[in-house]
C-alpha cells in the first residue's frame, strides 16, 4: 500500500508537466487545428525564464572591504548583488532565494508575447496547409529556438535552485499514519503538483465561467457559425494560443528546480507530450490532463525495481507501449471526440 502511494506521488510531478504541456497542445489543436511541434520549445523557454531571473537577480557589483583581507593581504573584494543594496541585505537575499517563484510573474507576459508573435508571424499562414506542413514548420521553429538557447546559455544543464523553504524532503507517510521513513517526498514536487493543479484549474475555469471562454468553446465546436454571428473568433483563438504558450512556459518555470534546464529538455518532453495528447484523445482537454497524470504515474510504477526485474527496460518504453496499445484498441484515445482528426 505504501509502495503504491509512494510511486503515485513520484509520478505526480512528471505527470503534472505532461498534463500542462499536453493541455496547451490540445488547446492549440482544438482551437486552431494546428499541430504544434514547437510546444516543447515553449516549455524549455519557460524553464530558461527561471534561469534568466535567477541570473538577473544575482547581478552584483564589487566593493573593496578594508576590514577583511584575502590570502595575499590585499583588501577583500566583496560581491554584493544589486537587489541586496537596493532592498537591504535580508530582503535582497530572500528575493534571490525566491527567484524561481518570482519568475512566474516575469514569464507570463513573455510567454504570452512569444505565443502571440508565433501565431501571428508564422502559424497564421499555415491554417490551410496540410498537417504535415504544420508539423514540419513548427519542427523547424523548435530547432531554431533550441539552438538560440544553446547559443546563449551553453549546452550544459544549469542548476536552478528552489527557495530554501522548499528544499529537502519531508516524511509524508507519517501524516497519513504510515510508518516513518517509508514515504519521503520532496517539498518542491508537492508545490509543483499543487501549482499545476491551480494552473489547469484556472484554464478550465476560464473556459467554463467567462464569456470569453464560452465564445472560445463555441468556436472549438463550430468555428464557422461563431464567425457568422459576427464574433471575431480568430482574434480570440490567437489569444488562446498565447495562453497555451503561457501554460507550457509556467510548467517550465516551475520545473527548473526539479531538473536542471538544458537546451534539449523541450524536445524530450515534446515527444512524450504528443504521445500523451494522442492517448488522451486529440482535441479533448480533460483527456489530455487525465492521460498526462496517468502516464506520469505509470512511468513511475514501471521504474520500480521488482517490475524492472521482471521486464527489463520497461521504464524506458512504458509510455510508448501504452500509447501504441491505446491507439490500436481505442483509435480516438481515451476521451477523444468523434470527427476530430479522422481524416
Amino acid at each position: 500500500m505504501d509502495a503504491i502511494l509512494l510511486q503515485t506521488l513520484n509520478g505526480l510531478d512528471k505527470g503534472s508537466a505532461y498534463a500542462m504541456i499536453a493541455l496547451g497542445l490540445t488547446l492549440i489543436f482544438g482551437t486552431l487545428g494546428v499541430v504544434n511541434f514547437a510546444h516543447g520549445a515553449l516549455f524549455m523557454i519557460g524553464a530558461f525564464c527561471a534561469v534568466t531571473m535567477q541570473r538577473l537577480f544575482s547581478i552584483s557589483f564589487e566593493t573593496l572591504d578594508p576590514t577583511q583581507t584575502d590570502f595575499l593581504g590585499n583588501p577583500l573584494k566583496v560581491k554584493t548583488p544589486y537587489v541586496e543594496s537596493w532592498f537591504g541585505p535580508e530582503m535582497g537575499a530572500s528575493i534571490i532565494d525566491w527567484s524561481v517563484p518570482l519568475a512566474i510573474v516575469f514569464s507570463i507576459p513573455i510567454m504570452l508575447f512569444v505565443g502571440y508573435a508565433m501565431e501571428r508571424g508564422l502559424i497564421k499562414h499555415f491554417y490551410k496547409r496540410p498537417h504535415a506542413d504544420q508539423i514540419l514548420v513548427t519542427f523547424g521553429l523548435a530547432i531554431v529556438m533550441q539552438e538560440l538557447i544553446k547559443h546563449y546559455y551553453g549546452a550544459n544543464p544549469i542548476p536552478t535552485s528552489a527557495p530554501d523553504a522548499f528544499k529537502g524532503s519531508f516524511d509524508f507517510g507519517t501524516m497519513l499514519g504510515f510508518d516513518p521513513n517509508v514515504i519521503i517526498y520532496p517539498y518542491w514536487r508537492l508545490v509543483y503538483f499543487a501549482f499545476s493543479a491551480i494552473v489547469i484549474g484556472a484554464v478550465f475555469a476560464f473556459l467554463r465561467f467567462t464569456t470569453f471562454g464560452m465564445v472560445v468553446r463555441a468556436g472549438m465546436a463550430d468555428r464557422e457559425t461563431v464567425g457568422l454571428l459576427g464574433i471575431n473568433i480568430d482574434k480570440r483563438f490567437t489569444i488562446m494560443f498565447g495562453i497555451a504558450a503561457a501554460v507550457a512556459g509556467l510548467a517550465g518555470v516551475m520545473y527548473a528546480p526539479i531538473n536542471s534546464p538544458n537546451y534539449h529538455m523541450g524536445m524530450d518532453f515534446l515527444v512524450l507530450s504528443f504521445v500523451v495528447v494522442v492517448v488522451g484523445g486529440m482535441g479533448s482537454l480533460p483527456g489530455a490532463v487525465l492521460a498526462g497524470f496517468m502516464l506520469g504515474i505509470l512511468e513511475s510504477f514501471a521504474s520500480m525495481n521488482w517490475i524492472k526485474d521482471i521486464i527489463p527496460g520497461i521504464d524506458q518504453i512504458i509510455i510508448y507501449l501504452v500509447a501504441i496499445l491505446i491507439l490500436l484498441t481505442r483509435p480516438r484515445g481515451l476521451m477523444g471526440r468523434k470527427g476530430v482528426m479522422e481524416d
Partner: protein
Amino acid sequence: MLGLDKKDMKFLLIVTFLTLATPILLQPFPEGSGLAQFNAGYPDLMQRFAIFGIFAIGFNILFGLTGYLSFGHAAFLGVGSYSAVWMFKLLSMNVLPGLVLAVIMSGLFALVIGYVSLRRSGIYFSILTLAFAQMSYNLAYSVLTPITNGETGLQVTLNDPRILGQQVSASGNVPGTHFFGIEMGAAQKIAIGSWEFTFSAGYYFCAIIAIIAFYLSLRIFRSPFGLMLRAIKSNQQRLNYTGLNARPYTLAAFVISGMYAGLAGGLLASMDPLAGAERMQWTASGEVVLMTILGGVGTMMGPVLGAGVIKYMENIFSKINDQVLHQWFGWLPDSLESIVIWAAEHFVGSGWHMTSGVLFMIVVIFLPGGLVEGGQRIKSYFKNRRGGDSDDPEHHPKQAPHVAE
C-alpha cells in the same frame, strides 16, 4: 532498355554519369586557393552524399508516393548499422554479408512497425512511428546494451571471432572493411595541375549501390505499384470505395523504404565500422525528412539533391569559424563588420543546427515543392520571358464556367 523508356533512360544515364564523376565535379577549386575549403571532393563526405542519398530515396518512396509522414525512419538506419557491425564481428570484414543482414533485419523491423503503425494515418501515423523509434532508441541505450554496447557504441575489436575472415590484420590492427579484397579505405590521389582528385574505393562502392537504389526506385515510381501508391496519397477513401485494400500497398512501401534505410545504415557501418544509438534518435529522423522536403517530395531527383545539399552545408558550415568570418568581412567598416560577424556566428560552427532549422522553415514556408520545384519555376520564368507563348496554364485565360460560380 532496362525496362525504362527513353526519357528515363537518359535521366538514369545522366545521374550515373554525375555520380561517377563526383570526385572531379566536387573539386572545382585548386588546392591552396582561398576557395579550397568549399571543395567537397574528399571520400568521407562523398560517401555520406551517396549513403544519405540512398536513405532519402527510400524515405521518398514512402512519404513522396503515399504521403505517410514517418518520423521514425532513423530507427531502421540504426538497425542496419548494428546488424552490419555484428556481421563484421562474427563473420568477416567483407561488407557483403553485413549489408545483406542489414537489409533483411531492417526489413523485418519495418514489417513489424509498419504493420502496427499503418493501422492509423495522418498525424497518428507520425506519432506511432515516432513512438516506435524512440522506443528502439531508449532500448538501445539501456536494456539492449549486450547487443548495442550502450553509450559507447558497437565497435569491432581484436577479440571478435570473425570465423570466415582474418581476426587480426598483418599489422596487428583490426582489419579494415573490404569487398572481396577491395579495401574500402583505399584511395587513389591524382594531381592534375594544382587540382587534386581523390578516387576512393569506398565512395565508388557506395555510388554504385546508390545508382542501383536509384534505378530501383525509378522502376517503382513508374510501375503500377507506384501508381497505386500515388492513388493512396491523392484519395485513399476513393480507393477503398473502388474495392481496393490500401494497406498491403502502404505496408509494402513502408518495408521497402525501411530496407533502403537499413541499406544506408549498413553502408555507414561499412565505411566506418561502428554503430551508436544516436543514429536512431528522432533528430536523425527529422534530418531525412528535411532532406526530402528540401529537395522536393515525390520527385525522383529531389531527395538525392536534398541529401547532398544538407550534408555539404553541414560540412562547410561546421568548418567556418571566427577567423574565417573575419577574413571574409574584413573589408567592411569595423562597426558593421562586428554586427555582421555577430549575426553570422549564430549560423556557423556549432550553430549549424540553427541553419538547418531556419532552412527547414524557409523551405516549408516558401518552397513547399523543394529545390526541384524552385528550379522548374525559374525555368518556366525564363521560358515565358523569351518565348511569350507558354504552355503554363496559369497564364492562359480561364475557360468561363458553364454555371456561374
